[in-house]
C-alpha cells in the first residue's frame, strides 16, 4: 500500500500561499502568452508595450489610479461581506444603484459643489445600501442564498441604467447615446486626471481594516464568519451583524459608483460599471479577507485592466481581459488549496505502514 506523502493542514501558512500564488500568476501568464503566440501576436513585444504604457508613462499611471479607485471600494465591499462568511456578488448592481442615485441628485439639485457633492455621496451610499436590502433581509431572516439574489439584481440595475440613460435622463444637449448629460459638479482633481476619490478610497479601506481588527463590532463579525454557532452561543446577535455588514458592503459599492460618476465619467452611462463589481470579487479573493491587502490586490487588478487598454490597441478584444482574470482567479483558487498541503517527512509514514500491517 502506498503511503500518503502529503498532509493537509487546516490553515495554510501565509508564506506558502504567497509562493503558490506567484506560481499561479506566472503559470496563468505563461498560458496567456502561449495562446497569444498561437493567435499570431508576439507575447514579448506585447509585454514590453504593456509595461511601457502602464508603469512607464504618466498617462498609464493616472489610468492605473483611476482604475484602482472603484476596485478598492468594490474589493472592500466583497471583503467585508466575506468576513462574516457571505458572498456579495452584486457589487456591480450596487455600483449602478449608487451611480444612479448620485446622478439623480446631481441632475436635480442645483447649487455649489460644496453642497451637491456631499449630497451625492450620501445618495450613492444609500443607493448601494437600498440595492442590497432585499438580499440582506432574505438572507438574515429566511436563509435565502445571497449569491444568487445579489447577482440577479445586477441585471436589473443594468437595465434600469439603460432605461434612464435612453429615456427620462437621456442626453438632450449633445445627443450622446445611452448617457445622461455631463453633470455640473465634479470631485476636484489632485494629480492629472486623478481625483480626490482615490486617496479617500484608500483611507476608507485602511479605516475598515482598523474597524474590523480593533473594534468589538469587527470582532463579532469575524467570529460570526468563522463559527456562526459559537457566535450565537456567545450571545452575538449574528442576524443583526449580517444585516449591518451586508448594508455596509452595499454602501461601499454604491460609493464606488458615486466616485465614478462624479470623478471619472462625469455622467451616468450604460455599461459604466465596467465589471468593477465582478472584479471586486477577484480583488477580495486576492486580499484573503484582509482589508489592508485590498490595496495591493486592487493595484494588481488595475494593472491587468490598464494593460487591457493596450491590448485593445493591438486588435485584441477587451473581453480578453475578463477571460484572463478568470484564468488567474482559477489558478489562484487551486494554488490556495494546494498551500494547505505539507509534504510529510520520510520517517513519519513508517508508523502508518506498520499500523496497516497489523490490521
Amino acid at each position, binding site marked *: 500500500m502506498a503511503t500518503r506523502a502529503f498532509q493537509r493542514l487546516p490553515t495554510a501558512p501565509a508564506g506558502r500561499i504567497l509562493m503558490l500564488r506567484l506560481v499561479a500568476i506566472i503559470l496563468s501568464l505563461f498560458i496567456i502568452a502561449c495562446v497569444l503566440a498561437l493567435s499570431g501576436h508576439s507575447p514579448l513585444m506585447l509585454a514590453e508595450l504593456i509595461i511601457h504604457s502602464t508603469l512607464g508613462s504618466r498617462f498609464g499611471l493616472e489610468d492605473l489610479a483611476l482604475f484602482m479607485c472603484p476596485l478598492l471600494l468594490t474589493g472592500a465591499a466583497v471583503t467585508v461581506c466575506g468576513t462574516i462568511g457571505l458572498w456579495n*456578488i452584486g457589487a456591480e448592481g450596487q455600483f449602478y444603484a449608487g451611480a444612479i442615485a448620485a446622478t439623480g441628485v446631481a441632475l436635480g439639485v442645483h447649487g455649489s459643489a460644496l453642497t451637491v457633492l456631499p449630497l451625492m455621496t450620501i445618495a450613492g451610499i444609500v443607493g448601494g445600501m437600498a440595492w442590497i436590502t432585499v438580499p440582506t433581509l432574505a438572507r438574515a431572516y429566511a436563509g435565502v442564498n445571497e*449569491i444568487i439574489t445579489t447577482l440577479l439584481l445586477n441585471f436589473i440595475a443594468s437595465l*434600469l441604467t439603460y432605461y434612464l440613460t435612453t*429615456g427620462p435622463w437621456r442626453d438632450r444637449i449633445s445627443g450622446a447615446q445611452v448617457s445622461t448629460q455631463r453633470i455640473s459638479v465634479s470631485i476636484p482633481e489632485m494629480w492629472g486626471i486623478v481625483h480626490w476619490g482615490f486617496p479617500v478610497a484608500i483611507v476608507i479601506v485602511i479605516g475598515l481594516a482598523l474597524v474590523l481588527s480593533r473594534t468589538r463590532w469587527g470582532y463579532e463579525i469575524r467570529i460570526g464568519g468563522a463559527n456562526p454557532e459559537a457566535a450565537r452561543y456567545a450571545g452575538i446577535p449574528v442576524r443583526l451583524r449580517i444585516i449591518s455588514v451586508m448594508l455596509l458592503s452595499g454602501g461601499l459599492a454604491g460609493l464606488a459608483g458615486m466616485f465614478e460618476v462624479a470623478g471619472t465619467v462625469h455622467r451616468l452611462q450604460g455599461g459604466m460599471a465596467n465589471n468593477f463589481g465582478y472584479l471586486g*470579487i477577484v480583488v477580495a479573493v486576492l486580499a484573503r479577507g484582509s482589508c489592508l491587502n485590498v490595496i495591493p490586490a486592487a493595484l494588481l487588478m488595475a494593472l491587468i485592466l490598464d494593460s487591457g487598454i493596450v491590448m485593445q490597441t493591438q486588435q485584441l478584444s477587451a473581453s480578453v481581459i475578463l477571460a484572463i482574470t478568470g484564468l488567474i482567479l482559477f489558478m489562484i483558487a487551486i494554488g490556495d488549496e494546494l498551500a494547505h498541503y505539507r509534504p510529510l517527512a520520510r520517517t513519519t509514514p513508517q508508523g502508518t505502514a506498520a499500523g496497516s500491517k497489523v490490521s
Partner: protein
Amino acid sequence: MITLLTGMLATAVLAGGVLALAALGEVLAERVGVTNLGVEGLMALGAVSAVITVFSFHSPWVGLLVAIMVGAVGGMVFAFGAVVMRANQVLCGLATTFMGLGLSTALGHNYAGQPVDATFGHVTIPLLSAIPVIGPAFFAQNILIVPIYVLLPALVHFVMFRTRHGLNMRAVGENPAAADAAGIPVMAMRFWYVTLGGAMAGMAGGYLTLTYVPVWSEGMVAGRGWIALALVIFAGYRPIIVTLSALLFGLVTALSFVGQAHNWPIDPAFLNMLPYLGTMAFIIVPVVVWHRMRRVMAAPAALAQPYYRDVR
C-alpha cells in the same frame, strides 16, 4: 384570447427549454455535492461555438454536438479545479464564468450580429400537434422540445430515484465519507456528473442560438445561467420539478414579449426585468411564506464541500 395564449405558451416553451437544460445539468452536479457557478459562462461558450460551427457546417445537429462537447470540456476544467484539486467551488465557478464570458466574446467577435442560417426547423408531430394550445407549443416547434421536457427529466428522475446508481449518486452529495466507506468512487462520481452538467449547460447555450435567438451577440446569455441556478434551489434539486419551473419561468419571459408586442404602457426595459424579478420572487417568497419549505427542499448536505478522504 386563445391565439394569445397559444403564442405565449409557444414562446414560454422555447425560452423555458434553455433554462430546463441548464438547470437539469446543474441538478446533476449539485446532487453529487458540487455547486457549479460556471453555468453562465459554459452557456455562453456553448452558444458561441454552436454559431461558429453552423457557419462552416450548415447543420444545426453538428452545431449542437459541438456546443455539448465544448460545454463538457468547460465542465471538466471546472471539475479539475473544484473536484480534483478540491479548490473553493465558489471561486472556481466564478472563474469559469469569467473565462467563459470573456472567451465567448473574443471568439464570437467576427460572428456577432450575423443571423445563423441553419437552425432547428419546425417539426410537426401528427395528432399531438392538433391539441389546442398545448399542441402548437410542444409538438409543432422543434424536434428537441419533447426530449428536453419529457425524455431527459424522466430519465434523470428514474436514474436518480429508482436505481442503485442513483442512490449512490445521492449518497455522494449527502455524505461523501459514508459513500466512500461503502466503496462508491466519490471523486469519479463528482467529476463525471459535473462534466455532464457542463455538457448540458453547453447544450443549453447551443439550443439558445440554434432555436430561440438565432444570432450571436455579446451578453446574449443575459443571466440565464444564474436563473437556472436559482431554479435548481427553487425546485429543491428535483429533476421533474426543475423542468416544470423552467417552463413556468419561460412564461414569465413570454409575458415580457407579449407586453412588448401588444404595446403595453410599460417601458420594455421594465418588461425585460421581469425574469430577474421573477427569479428573486421564486426563491424568496416560498421560503418566507412556508417555513417548512426549507427542510423539504433542502440542499444536499455536502453541497459545496470538498471531500478529503485523509482529514481525520
